[in-house]
């Protein structure tokens, strides 16, 4: 019986450990992406817009495009952070959706995994799209999708605070004038600026306009320009122009700070436009200035419409019709208005500005914007981005000086991308 007890003991111990493993191992087989075995049958579309239900304009557009192509469409919405893993697992199970709408920096990862077809394979026409937006979906000379719309970052400002502090927003043209404006707002008893420097991709996304605006390049994080950008943020925190909470702010919590009406400026995205109208105070928007003037290139946000690899290539022609329908000029206008995005093509942008003149500043920002995975960085970008946001956190929390933080980040990034 000793054997039995020992066995029982080991089994019991294993159970304790195994129960723990259950919490750590994300091993779920994905459902939904039913690709069918022929070219007919329902076409599945996955998107990262769970905020839209079946009665929304977006879902109705999907249905309309489906019936125009002569097929039924089965749509599933996922949380955007969830979608990458879902797409990878689905591909592993040969269960990919026919059309996948996915955040642009993920494209290079999925393309690297061999999950996506190129626009050459599927004959999707990308000629009308602005090259700087399309670049986020291009790796090694191949294009893996077409942007559905774009968003980017700019500076929102609170008009009454600037007025009280004696700052004219139109004079904020470079870093020096912006810092001066922050100093005045702080002196007037308000807070200067809020942004998001959290230790995730969001933090890198928000830091990039300053990094690029100084002329720095992602392949060399610890260049003098990169250090200048990080020093700018660090000084703002040290002088009290920006709150310490930015270190933990997501873009949403940063927006909530701005919405209290206590902040002169906030770095945030196109998607907050609708919320800006609800704040109850007068706001304005200026592009993020470069170090020595001009508009800093902000990273492009927004999703790409892609066609994942299928076993039955006959399905591609219908998928192409769906993609073309979703990104055609007329529908692009509807979609981007629904999503509060800027269209990826000139004619539609002109139409958007004609309808809503305040979008002008965003259209300019999108023109200046740059894909994070552009410059042929592709899957190197995530390996650079993580050390970068870590360096930002280290400098802002005071555990390292900007130069030391970025030097450490550069050596991590260099060994990861080797």
């Amino acid at each position, binding site marked *: 019986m000793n054997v039995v007890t020992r066995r029982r003991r080991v089994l019991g111990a294993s159970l304790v450990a195994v129960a723990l493993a259950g919490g750590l191992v994300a091993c779920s087989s994905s459902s939904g992406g039913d690709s069918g075995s022929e070219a007919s049958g329902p076409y599945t579309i996955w998107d990262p817009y769970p905020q839209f239900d079946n009665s929304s304009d977006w879902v109705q557009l999907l249905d309309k495009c489906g019936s125009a192509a002569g097929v039924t469409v089965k749509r599933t919405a996922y949380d955007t952070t969830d979608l990458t893993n879902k797409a990878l697992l689905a591909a592993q199970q040969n269960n990919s959706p026919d059309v996948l709408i996915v955040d642009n920096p993920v494209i290079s990862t999925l393309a690297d995994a061999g999950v996506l077809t190129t626009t050459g394979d599927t004959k999707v026409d990308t000629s009308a799209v602005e090259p700087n937006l399309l670049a986020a979906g291009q790796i090694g000379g191949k294009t893996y999708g077409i942007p559905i719309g774009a968003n980017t970052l700019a500076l929102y400002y609170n008009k009454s605070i600037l007025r009280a502090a004696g700052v004219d927003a139109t004079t904020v043209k470079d870093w020096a004038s912006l810092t001066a404006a922050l100093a005045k707002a702080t002196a007037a008893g308000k807070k200067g600026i809020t942004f998001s420097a959290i230790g995730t991709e969001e933090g890198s996304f928000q830091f990039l306009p300053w990094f690029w605006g100084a002329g720095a390049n992602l392949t060399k994080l610890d260049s003098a320009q990169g250090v200048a950008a990080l020093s700018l943020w660090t000084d703002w925190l040290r002088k009290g122009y920006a709150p310490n909470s930015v270190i933990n702010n997501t873009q949403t919590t940063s927006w909530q700070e701005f919405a209290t009406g206590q902040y002169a400026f906030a770095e945030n995205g196109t998607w907050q436009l609708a919320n800006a109208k609800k704040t109850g105070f007068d706001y304005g928007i200026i592009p993020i200035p470069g170090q020595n003037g001009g508009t800093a290139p902000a990273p492009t946000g927004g999703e790409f419409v892609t066609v994942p690899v299928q076993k039955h290539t006959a399905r591609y022609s219908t998928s192409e019709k769906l993609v073309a329908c979703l990104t055609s000029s007329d529908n692009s206008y509807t979609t981007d208005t629904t999503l509060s995005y800027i269209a990826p093509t000139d004619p539609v942008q002109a139409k958007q500005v004609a309808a809503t003149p305040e979008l002008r500043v965003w259209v300019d920002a999108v023109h200046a914007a740059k894909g994070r995975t552009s410059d042929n960085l592709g899957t190197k970008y995530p390996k650079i981005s993580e050390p970068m946001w870590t360096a930002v956190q280290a400098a802002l*929390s005071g555990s390292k000086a900007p130069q030391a933080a970025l030097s450490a980040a550069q050596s991590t990034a260099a060994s990861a991308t080797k």
Partner: protein
Amino acid sequence: MNNTTHAPVARPVRVSGEAARAAPPRTGGRAGRPRSGQWAAWAFLAPVTVYLVVFYAYPLYRNLDLSLRDYTVRSFVQGGAPFSGLANYRKVLGDPTFGPALLHTVVFTLVSIAVQFALGLALAVFFTQYFRLSATLRALFLVPWLLPLIVSASTWSWLLNSDSGLVNSVLHGVGVAPVNWLTSPRWALVSVIIANIWIGIPFNLVVLYSGLQTISPNLYEAAALDGANGWQKFWRVTFPLLRPVSAITLLLGLIYTLKVFDIIWIMTKGGPTDSSTTFATWSYRLGFGNLLPQFGPGAAVGNLLIVMALIFGLVYIRVQRRQQSA
């Protein structure tokens, strides 16, 4: 717990291995052909076995497999990741995050457990005195347990916010300079430990309180007659008699606390930089916190955590067995 009736049964069982193997009475024919009764036994066992294999053994195996192969996103999808032996473990052990993560895991676990247990025990002793509203108060102490972790962690991160948090405004009210609870490397780990202690107290309170109920009041009476004061009664009567329950509480707490992830991730994301990273958050960050997942190293860290839990699990079972035979 202190089930003395088990002792006479348990003792004679402990014979040598040889005798044990011979011990199960096998009636009916040769050993090779199971009786129909045994088939039925297997049939009854099958559901739980299948359940265990599908939901526990297989994921564990997959996690081990992930940690021993060089996975890229491509090989994750298309298969064919080359076997790389312990390369992922070497990578993890050589990572600059390893040292801090190990230290934080140990500090987080030990401090949380010690304080949770001390406060839980103090409250349990306190609530053995019946007084008006004692039941209501005790119920209120259970609230942290009832809240979903995401709710309590988000609430804590609002409370501890550097600029608009309630804690800092109270500190300001009494003339103390604000503390960057979640955003300074010095305080981030402390903050998550505080939140975790708050969440863990109810568990300790409930288990220890029920343990106290089993101590006979006669003993306290006898102690009082011998002239023991309250302090002596606690150290000479309560504490020794509560030892079996305490051991279980501490060990279960240890295993729970080792794997705490949600609180830390919601409050600090393991940051700033690595100042509140534990093995649990590090494993998640490697596997899911980046646009480009690193499944291999992530699984390796997860397995290290499992090994740590397994050690404590074995200790737990050992302690439990000793108590049963005591």
